[in-house]
């Protein structure tokens, strides 16, 4: 059962790489921003259905929430569009390594200062080594 869960998590990551490669192809024919639009439009429909049937939270909290906590969608647009633009130039491998480095460094900084409502956790040696190893991987893969 535990092994199966690891497999699920592996498949989740694999899904992201497949998504990047496929959207890169769609981006070539209909345009990159248009591809992002499609992803978010279709995602809204899928999640809208999931919410109707399985939603247990409180959607109306969006109206009371601090406004900055509603910016996730716009940030997601930057991420997806950058993937769709970059994959045809450098390939899926380099793109994913670069995304992960950006994520690692930024989440280290965010958590170090406790920004955006995150729990404050100091940068430690291991996290710095993790970023350095990933940068070496990026140089080698390029």
């Amino acid at each position, binding site marked *: 059962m535990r092994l199966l*869960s690891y497999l699920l*998590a592996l*498949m*989740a*990551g694999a*899904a*992201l*790489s497949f*998504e990047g490669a*496929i*959207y*890169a192809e*769609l981006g070539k024919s*209909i345009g990159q*921003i248009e591809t992002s*639009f499609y*992803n978010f439009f279709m*995602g*809204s429909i899928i*999640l809208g259905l*999931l919410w109707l049937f399985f939603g247990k*939270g*409180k*959607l109306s909290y969006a109206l009371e929430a601090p406004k900055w906590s*509603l910016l*996730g*969608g*716009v*940030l*997601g647009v*930057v*991420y*997806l569009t950058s*993937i769709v633009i*970059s*994959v045809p*130039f*450098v*390939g*899926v491998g*380099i*793109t994913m*390594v*670069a*995304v*992960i480095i*950006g*994520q*690692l460094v930024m989440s280290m900084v965010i958590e170090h200062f406790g920004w955006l*409502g995150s*729990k404050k956790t100091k940068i430690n*040696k*291991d*996290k710095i*080594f993790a*970023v350095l*190893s*990933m940068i070496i*991987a*990026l140089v080698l893969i390029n």
Partner: protein
Amino acid sequence: MGLFMILFTLIGGITLSAQSSINGTLSRKAGTIETTFLTFLTGTLFLTIFILFFGNGNVLGLLDAPKWQLSAAFLGTMYLLLTVMAVPRIGVIATNIAGIAGQLVIGVVIDHFGWFNSLVIELDMKRVFALLFMVLSLYFIYRGNKRTSEESAA
């Protein structure tokens, strides 16, 4: 051009990490499905305005695009669902690390075979070493996170 693209993609990773912190905060009160729904919805609204003013492509081309290209929309949802299924059983840290491993390995495999009409970049010795350094990095992420969670538990 390649280097510029890499920098550009780094920014993509930076925004993604800011997004997960922000969404994490929102989902504590609004719920996971609700937060994800809102993310997609606000993204769609933003892109609708953006495309109307700055779009050079052809949105209607979606109707003619091969269906396998459109199926990618379900992969993003699959990622979310699989993650939500794995986290309660093996924890956030292990789920993220296994997820990154899957992402990187499949990324290199897609490049090697040039699947989906993508660039063909062969898996040579240099790339094998790159994969080894990624594994090393994942090990450090694991150790770093374990240390943090032990400190916060103490």
